[in-house]
């Protein structure tokens, strides 16, 4: 059997294992191992099972992920999310859509100190959702806002998935973060526009709050000093070149720890919970990377990527057509996989296609993250939606999906803009 056929069988076997409840990282690892063994022998394959996880565990580039995870957990424990929410409410709460707009701005702000969409959704599911429901927002609308806002956790740098993409594609993490700045801003603007349109059409659905006097609004900004300082230290340190990404993440961890401690929010039990949450979430990512590394060896050895590129060439599709097809594939995958898995499973196949067409891998990385964000909102298994439904079972899935619709349209527009105008992504890294 030729290697390309082995690779295609391997791909099918991987999906079959995933469908049979095998964790995604393990499914990739097992299939990668068996496929690699079928071409290079079992001795070489079994050696991979030690060397690849070992190099992943010792990688200093990937060490940023547990640090960001820990920083996010400490920030949440220290009450930074509540501070950011209070500030955002004072600034935009009186506008159409009031608390909904507040949630989006606060989610973006929290995204700057936490690199995970699921963590952002869970945090604001606790902080913002009860507030909106108490002020008369419908369950579907409020959960929809939180779910959409949660996706900002991965598009606003720093973002764990961007670190992972950069490491796996051998790109600069700093360039990825710079490239994400304008798309992140665009996402916030489009989400706020969606809220504004919905609130204007049906003010009862999303009532605004009273406008605070200027003095109170300035005071509210002051209340978020911890979050603002943390974002400045981490992002400012990275962009100014004073710190490396690892150093900025480490300083962020220490700051978030001292802040939570100083506020009296970190007792023994919370500290244990923070460490436990961050450690388990970190290993979830590492297990996927173990599998992805082994699977990538198998895919590279099989040469299937070249065959796929040849097949696409034979179709005669223009590059834009290929990108459009890939966008559809990712929207589909994103509805089934979590953010890390969808990127990692496809990267060995998709990246060679992107590079062969002459596209910038940084541009594709940002587009990829944005697409995964959309997938986290779309049925059948938008993971943010499932999470909110698990947190508030009185809000039905269909109601949340209805609440998301306006944001889905905003996301489609964002994807279109990012795909058609690569300079939206690439301009900032080019001048920094």
């Amino acid at each position: 059997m030729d290697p390309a056929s082995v690779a295609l069988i391997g791909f099918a076997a991987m999906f079959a294992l995933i469908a049979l409840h095998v964790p995604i990282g393990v499914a990739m690892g097992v299939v990668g191992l068996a496929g690699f063994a079928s071409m290079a022998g079992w001795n070489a394959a079994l050696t991979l099972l030690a060397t690849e996880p070992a190099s992943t565990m010792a990688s200093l580039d990937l060490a940023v992920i547990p640090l960001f995870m820990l920083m996010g957990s400490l920030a949440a424990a220290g009450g930074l999310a509540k501070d950011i929410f209070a500030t955002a409410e004072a600034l935009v709460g009186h506008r159409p859509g009031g608390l909904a707009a507040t949630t989006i701005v606060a989610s973006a702000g929290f995204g700057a100190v936490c690199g995970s969409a699921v963590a952002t959704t869970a945090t604001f599911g606790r902080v913002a959702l009860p507030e909106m429901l108490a002020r008369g927002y419908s369950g579907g609308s409020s959960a929809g806002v939180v779910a959409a806002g949660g996706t900002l956790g991965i598009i606003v740098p720093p973002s764990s998935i961007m670190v992972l993409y950069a490491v796996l594609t051998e790109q600069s993490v700093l360039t990825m973060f710079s490239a994400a700045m304008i798309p992140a801003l665009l996402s916030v603007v489009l989400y706020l526009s969606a809220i504004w349109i919905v609130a204007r059409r049906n003010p009862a659905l999303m009532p605004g709050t009273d406008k605070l006097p200027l003095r109170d609004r300035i005071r509210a900004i002051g209340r978020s000093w911890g979050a603002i300082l943390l974002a400045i230290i981490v992002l400012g340190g990275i962009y100014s070149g004073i710190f490396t990404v690892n150093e900025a993440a480490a300083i962020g961890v220490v700051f978030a720890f001292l802040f939570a401690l100083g506020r009296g929010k970190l007792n023994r039990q919370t500290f244990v919970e923070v460490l436990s949450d961050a450690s388990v979430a970190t290993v979830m990512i590492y297990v996927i990377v173990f599998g992805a590394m082994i699977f990538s060896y198998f895919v590279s050895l099989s040469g299937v990527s070249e065959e796929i590129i040849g097949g696409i060439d034979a179709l005669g599709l223009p590059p834009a057509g290929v990108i459009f097809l890939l966008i559809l594939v990712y929207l589909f995958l994103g509805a089934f996989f979590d953010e890390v898995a969808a990127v990692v499973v496809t990267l060995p196949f998709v990246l060679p296609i992107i590079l062969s067409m002459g596209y910038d891998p940084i541009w594709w990385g940002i587009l990829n993250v944005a697409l995964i964000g959309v997938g986290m909102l779309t049925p059948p298994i938008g993971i943010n939606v499932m999470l909110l439904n698990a947190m508030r079972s009185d809000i039905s899935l269909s109601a949340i999906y209805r609440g998301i619709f306006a944001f889905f349209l905003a996301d489609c527009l964002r994807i279109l803009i990012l795909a058609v105008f690569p300079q939206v992504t690439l301009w900032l890294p080019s001048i920094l």
Partner: protein
Amino acid sequence: MDALDRFVRRATLWLALLGFAGLLLLAVMTSLDALLRSAFSAPLHGVNDVSAVVMAVVIASCIPANLAQRRNIAVEVLGGVAGPRTHRILTLFAGLVVLAFFGVMAWKFIPYAEGMYLSGRRTWVLAWPVWPWWAAAALFLVFAAAVQALNVLQDVIALKGAFADRPSAVPQTRPLPEGDA
């Protein structure tokens, strides 16, 4: 059996906590290094050396807890649609695959750590021997495989209970985590 299960799961939690407490210490060291370097041009020597060896141990120390809490990302749609018995069969199958994966990984890590010992490899700046760290990582992986074996045993008992149609015989398993789909 229950007492052993509780003991092992508690041990995984403490191991992970110890690992991440180590990460916190590493973050403090890295911060000091960065601040001393940028403020006084006097960096701490060997921080990268420490990071490279400690990170492997930190991650390996968290794997048993991750397995004990069944917190790996999996798509459990089929079992959800097909009913509780099929769900338990699939859980057992997935558990066996995970056991095989981590079992073989632990098995291959032992000669890997041994290779580090035999080659006498040391870190660049501090010249620390590397093998003790990898030996610790290998040990934690062996523990992780044992934890997964316990999970599988629990799944077998749960499946037996489900087929005997005695719901009370089914041991409590953890609910699906927030991150799972």
